[in-house]
């Protein structure tokens, strides 16, 4: 899961007043024409929020760092616009006969920005380092399915304090065969393993990283279309230049890209309007209404992997009956909320798997469609106590107030149940509370995928193995049938069969409704007249290499 950092909590409240005062200006697009065709070369600038980390792939679990990292690296595989795996990365092939032992063969000719070759060792060393718990890497759980991962985790006492060194520094499941080949042995079969390895946690690292990880974090050395030509300055950003020896198919179009750190989206928007900034990879919510009219084809919108849902505390007797959960879900008109609150920038969810993933089915969620009569009937059957208000939970300061309140209003209108909003906890309190079964009503959660597989929308969120504190199954849903179908999908002989089994698991989920799917997010971006070919990829990032600068 990538934690989205793009929210302007500080400024959001007072902002509307300022916008009112300035709104009369409107968007005046009369600035300089774009001139000649978009050739190669040139410089452009792109907005990013402050990345949380030193820029190390295995420690980057949030959206801003991901945008930077993904322009500096190319992984084993890449993804097409529809989420399909493409072998345009470093891997020649990733094959297995039993879905457990995978042989990864690398292409010749890939080099890091410092000139050293990208070989099997660069992957194996990077993965071992990322999994080794004393290195405290945020994305370490991505390696947890590799055999020997547990031996790299430091033992802890009852209070969770580390009591010593891990038993090993290398995972037994990773074996270097030769320079261009290594094998990965998984702890349990996983047919979609090749789909996962395009994620940034699996990027290779050069020798120089291990000598000084700290320095590397401010000036990363990757193998991607761009190379860092200066240190990253927190609060300001840095400039990257085209890597001329890039071995991938899609070399960078522009000569230089300036990543500029901003604290607030509205400032970025003003900077684009004044012609000082070329790409804004997101839009302030207030600017969405009418954005297409205002900005024309400079406004770009694409479906994203983001999935917003409200989880039910299935441990609470009040919500333990699935008919109650089905009924509440059916009483909410998602599209109306999207139109009213988000200016239509969210799609009403009709599956638990997002549309950007192969395996999504339109209308798969029967109880996601508004049906007030049936909802009332189901509630009566379940004997739900309508006199008590429903408590709706969300984390504070992240812009969830309005839509959760709209959900409450619909429940009141359609079912005659009052609601209370419980939106005063920050993430740092909200998350522990959900881990310790503290939720007393439906609670907001979000997910965006790590890799385009239906499995990523199912197993980490609802399987028994993913119960807190180890995983994100915050509704504490547990259904052996669901678990078994997901496992069968993981061990399926081919991709099609895997997807079919995942869909069967999805069906069970959408019958039990431990969550109510709410929205699929759309990703927006804005470009200046200075650039074209601004494309949003499946992860919601801008494909920086594809952007051309108009001369």
């Amino acid at each position, binding site marked *: 899961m990538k934690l989205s950092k793009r929210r302007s909590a500080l400024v959001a409240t007072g902002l509307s007043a300022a916008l009112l005062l300035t709104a009369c200006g409107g968007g005046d697009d009369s600035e300089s024409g774009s001139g000649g065709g978009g050739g190669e070369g040139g410089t452009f600038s792109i907005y990013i929020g402050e990345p949380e980390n030193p820029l190390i792939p295995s420690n980057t679990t949030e959206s801003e760092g991901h945008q930077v990292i993904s322009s500096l690296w190319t992984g084993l595989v890449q993804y097409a616009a529809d989420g399909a795996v493409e072998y345009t990365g470093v891997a020649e092939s990733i094959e297995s006969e039993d879905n457990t032992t995978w042989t990864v063969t690398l292409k010749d000719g890939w080099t890091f920005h410092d000139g050293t070759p990208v070989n099997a060792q660069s992957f194996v060393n990077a993965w071992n380092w990322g999994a080794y718990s004393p290195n405290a890497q945020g994305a370490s759980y991505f390696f947890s399915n590799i055999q020997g991962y547990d031996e790299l985790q430091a033992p802890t006492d009852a209070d969770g304090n580390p009591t010593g060194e891990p038993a090993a520094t290398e995972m037994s499941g990773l074996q270097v065969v030769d320079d261009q080949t290594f094998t990965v042995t998984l702890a349990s079969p996983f047919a979609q393993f090749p789909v996962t390895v395009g994620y940034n946690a699996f990027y290779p690292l050069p020798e120089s990283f291990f000598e000084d990880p700290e320095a590397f974090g401010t000036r990363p050395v990757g193998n991607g279309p761009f190379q860092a030509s200066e240190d990253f300055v927190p609060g300001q950003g840095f400039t990257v230049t085209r890597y001329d020896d890039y071995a991938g198919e899609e070399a960078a179009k522009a000569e230089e890209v300036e990543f500029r*750190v901003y604290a607030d989206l509205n400032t970025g928007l003003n900077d684009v309007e004044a012609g000082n900034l070329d790409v804004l990879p997101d839009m302030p919510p207030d600017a969405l209404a009418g954005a297409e009219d205002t900005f024309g084809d400079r406004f770009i919108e694409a479906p994203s992997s983001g999935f917003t849902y409200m989880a039910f505390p299935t441990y609470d007797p009040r919500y333990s009956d699935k008919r109650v959960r089905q009924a509440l879900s059916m009483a909410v008109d998602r599209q109306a909320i999207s139109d009213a609150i988000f200016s239509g920038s969210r799609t009403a969810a009709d599956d638990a798997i997002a549309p950007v993933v192969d395996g999504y089915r339109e209308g798969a969620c029967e109880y996601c469609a508004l049906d007030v009569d049936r909802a009332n009937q189901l509630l009566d059957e379940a004997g739900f106590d309508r006199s008590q208000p429903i408590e709706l939970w969300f984390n504070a300061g992240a812009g969830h107030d309005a839509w959760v309140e709209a959900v409450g209003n619909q429940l009141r209108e359609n079912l005659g149940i009052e609601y209370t909003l419980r939106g005063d906890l*920050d993430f740092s309190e909200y998350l522990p509370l959900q881990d310790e079964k503290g939720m007393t009503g439906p609670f907001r959660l979000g997910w965006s995928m790590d890799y385009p597989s239906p499995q990523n929308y199912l197993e980490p969120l609802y399987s028994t193995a993913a119960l807190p504190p180890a995983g994100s199954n915050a509704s504490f849903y547990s259904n052996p049938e669901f678990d078994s179908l997901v496992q069968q999908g993981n061990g399926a002989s081919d991709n099609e069969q895997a997807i079919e089994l995942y869909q069967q698991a999805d069906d069970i989920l959408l019958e039990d409704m431990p969550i109510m799917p709410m929205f699929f997010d759309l990703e927006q971006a804005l470009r200046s007249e200075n650039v074209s070919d601004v494309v949003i990829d499946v992860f919601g990032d801008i494909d920086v290499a594809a952007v051309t600068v108009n001369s």
Partner: protein
Amino acid sequence: MGRYIARRLLLTIPVLIGASFLIFALVYALPGDPIRALGGDRPLAPAVVAELRDEFNLDDPLPVQYVKYLGDLVQGDFGTDFRGREVIDTIEQRLPVTIRLTIVAIAIETVIGIIAGLLAGIRRNGFLDNLVLVSSTIVVAIPILVLAFVAQYVLGVKAGWFPIAGITEGWYSYLLPGLVLASGSLAYVARLTRTSVAENLRADYVRTARAKGLPNRTVITRHTLRNSLIPVVTFIGADIGTLMGGAIVTETVFNLPGIGRAVFDSVQAQEGAVVVGIVTLMVFFFIFFNLVVDVLYAVLDPRIRYD
């Protein structure tokens, strides 16, 4: 005088220790689990959580955590944030930005504020006096957030006179944010000066000076203004201390990577070491500039003696 300054400086030590403990305790008292929030919707691996909690002493009681922090601090180690970035690096990087912004803002509010206040005070109830009164009331009434966005949009985006965000254009980048930041204090400085000047103009020593036949210019600059500046200097001194603490709203809107934003972010992330390091530094600045103000009193008014 020297003894006085030395004594005051020595007094800052207990104040700094007390302040840092207080801030440390406040961050400690914040509810929630910062390490859990690091991972977001997907929890970090358990061994990683254990490693981080151990590294940042999060499982120790408050006094133990604080003593460990002080121990490191005495050795010149300001600690790191949760992601391993040195706090001292953060301060080094961000302090110059805040200092520049403060210099620009203070320069604007001092020069414009005192001149406007002086002119208004000399001709009370004249056109200029009323103009200063009305405009300063308006500026004080508008929240700085609104002022910042309007200034950015009108003067930056529409008119194109100023850079909109960032610090890439050197001192020029600080002009508009400095103006916005100074606006509120500017109004106070103007009105303080005006009142003070108006009052002093009626004082006996001014009448004496006039009676001696001194030119009007000398009466006003040498006698009236100098005496009128004491409350103004007090205000400006306190204001420097405040501005050095970072102007979160202005820094955010104009995208200046200063100290205020660093504190805001680290309070949200509950990063004790960062908050304490920076805020203690702010407290020091505040004390220091108050001392400077006290010393300046003696320069402005020879009757004030510290020995």
